[in-house]
């Protein structure tokens, strides 16, 4: 018969004791230490292989030559390469023949959106809603025409641009200098306001009849006798609800007196043909294109 006492296996202690508190010794598995050494070896290799140690003029380059900047550049080149065919097609494309939903159309719109945000949004606004003196591109009112080729010409050659001989050009005289008296200006402003549904309630009706005569003598050659304007000269339609500089009497008076002179740069030298086509297609589909 073998009767043996139960040996309670207490873990060994490290031998330290402070105020009766002892520390158990639960040894870690040996492979943990090997993993630890392995991480040190890995760490040394990593600092040699990749950019790591800060020096005076920048970090060590690492023998693998890895660089996030170069990776981004590679990615950009890769996408440019993937888009090069569409880019070439777009440069010579007939915009009116772009098929809605086709790859080329999608590419044009997306590329145009980026171009617009970069080069056009400063004046026309990021949502293309324009600003005082800078036309709203979302509405259906166009100074020089809202068809695709009109927009394309405007983008390429600009308006009153000094850099481009083919730029769209016209100039409204400053009628306050010598042409018209203050009284005549007040009359013609009242007449102009009476034409637009937006301002006719505010027009001084007592001056309208005289204003009509001043208008016929001085303004109708560009703005037409009925005030509907002339796109070939960039002369705005005065009978619609849209006023580029503002629809109050003071603003309209100062426009007639001093003459507006809005300038848009010609983009043909600065943007590529495909970018010009892209941004034209983009603007055309914003809601007002003709």
């Amino acid at each position, binding site marked *: 018969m*073998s009767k043996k006492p139960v040996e309670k*296996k207490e873990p060994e202690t490290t031998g330290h004791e402070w105020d009766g508190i002892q520390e158990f010794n639960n*040894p870690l598995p040996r492979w943990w230490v090997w993993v630890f050494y392995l991480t040190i070896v890995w760490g040394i290799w990593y600092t040699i292989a990749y950019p790591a140690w800060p020096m005076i003029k920048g970090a060590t380059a690492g023998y693998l030559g890895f660089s996030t900047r170069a990776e981004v550049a590679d990615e950009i080149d890769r996408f440019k390469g993937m888009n090069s065919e569409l880019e070439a097609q777009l440069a010579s494309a007939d915009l009116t023949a772009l098929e809605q939903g086709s790859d080329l159309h999608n590419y044009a719109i997306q590329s145009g959106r980026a171009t617009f945000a970069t080069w056009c949004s400063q004046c026309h606004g990021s949502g293309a*809603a324009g600003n005082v003196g800078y036309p709203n591109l*979302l509405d259906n009112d166009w100074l020089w025409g809202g068809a695709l080729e009109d927009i394309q010409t405007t983008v390429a050659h600009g308006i009153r641009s000094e850099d481009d001989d083919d730029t769209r050009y016209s100039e409204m005289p400053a009628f306050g200098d010598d042409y018209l008296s203050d009284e005549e200006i007040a009359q013609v402003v009242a007449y102009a306001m009476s034409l637009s549904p937006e301002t006719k309630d505010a027009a001084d009706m007592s001056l309208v009849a005289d204003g009509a005569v001043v208008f016929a003598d001085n303004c109708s050659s560009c703005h037409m006798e009925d005030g509907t304007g002339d796109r070939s000269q960039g002369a705005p*339609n005065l009978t619609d609800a*849209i006023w580029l500089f503002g629809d109050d009497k003071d603003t309209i008076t100062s426009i007639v007196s001093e003459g507006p002179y809005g300038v848009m740069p010609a983009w043909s030298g600065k943007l590529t043909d495909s970018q010009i086509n892209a941004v034209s297609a983009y603007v055309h589909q914003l*809601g007002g294109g003709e």
Partner: protein
Amino acid sequence: MSDAPEQLYAPREPIFPKRVKGTFRSLKWWIMGLTLGVYYLAPWIRWDRGPNLPDQAILVDMANRRFFFFWIEIWPHEFYFIAGLLIMAGLGLFLFTSAAGRVWCGYTCPQTVWTDLMILVERWIEGDRNARIRLHRQKWDAEKIRKRIVKFIAWILIAVATGGAWVFYFADAPTLLMDLVTGQAHPLAYSTILVLTLTTFFFGGIAREQICIYACPWPRIQAAMMDEDTITIAYREWRGEPRGRGKKRDDLGDCIDCNACVAVCPMGIDIRDGQQMECITCGLCIDACDEMMVKVGKERGLIDYLALKDEAYERAGNQKIPVMKHLLRPRTILYTSLWTLVGVALTVAIFARPKVDVTIRPVRNPTYVTLSDGSIRNTYDVGVRNRHGEEWPYYFTLTDGSNLTVELEGSDKLVLVAPPDTEAKQRLYVVAPPGSETAKLDRSDLRIWVVDGVTGDRAHLDTVFNGKGR
């Protein structure tokens, strides 16, 4: 220091679990068969969804950002269903742990299941415990090398199958299998298989219990969910001690000190030392002990599923506390209720998904546009989510009798045709006539109706119309 420095690091002591028969071993075989069967076969179940949708029952389509599960299709914006399932999995784990300790670890954890499988294969090739110990001590002769090579090859085959099965959840299984065999599959598929092969081989074959003891955080967290009613595995010390071998047992307890419980333990512990951190409560020691107790004509259950409370109770000479008394307590009832609550909420949510799933976002840059005739136009980005496997038309209208007009970019008929299994987006214009109340008001409510062009189901979108405010 007076004492010589202790060993800070100890070599692993190899464990050779002995084969055992019994209730819990059978249960473990069944669970292993079920879990492995589901894992390996699930991607091969076919499910017809029509021409433009995948016909794999369970598919995580990363490229198209879709998750298919039989009749359910989940889009990325519905990821909360997955989050909900994870919450349920978490609560379920809490419930089982507080009720029955580490049952997850002992029966269903992949680490346990695959280790079990690897040990099974090892036993076929190298023999049972004693043969394996002998082989372990044996010199590297031809027999040992042969057996080790055969075993490693078998393990690698299992590991490759494990890694291979995983990738089938992410692509059409038959196509991917052909691509894998012919070498045309995506490099990511091969590298995933390689990584999972290595982890399966290493974790299940070599590292085994080391993963549970040193790598897994779950055993440490589990302690927080256990209390004195939690059923874990325990040795009835008051019945077994003093232990000893021999026929004359007048001074001895029921434990015959046969070490059967130690020999079968996959974690290499002696359950008679009490509940230990390493114990995964797999129940194999119960099977081993019961077998011996029956052989020597004693009552089963010297090692048993017991709660901490039972000890004092049984020592005082009482009968065992019924299991239900342990199970039914505020903690488990709370976990069950929370689990059910999330489950019911998810079920309701999945059946309450709208038939016509549409979105609208007013464009606020600018809020409105004045047109040349003085009318006011608002722009909206609308989207329709077409879950069908074919093109589907959706019509847009305003409430009858509205004085506003509506236009849809690219369509004269106000119809947006969504491609199969795609969210189609388009711009919608709403125009208020010049001088109308809507044009003048700062903002007014607007309701847009969307009609499913095939079924006629309707949904509405409530948004606002911004006017001039003067």
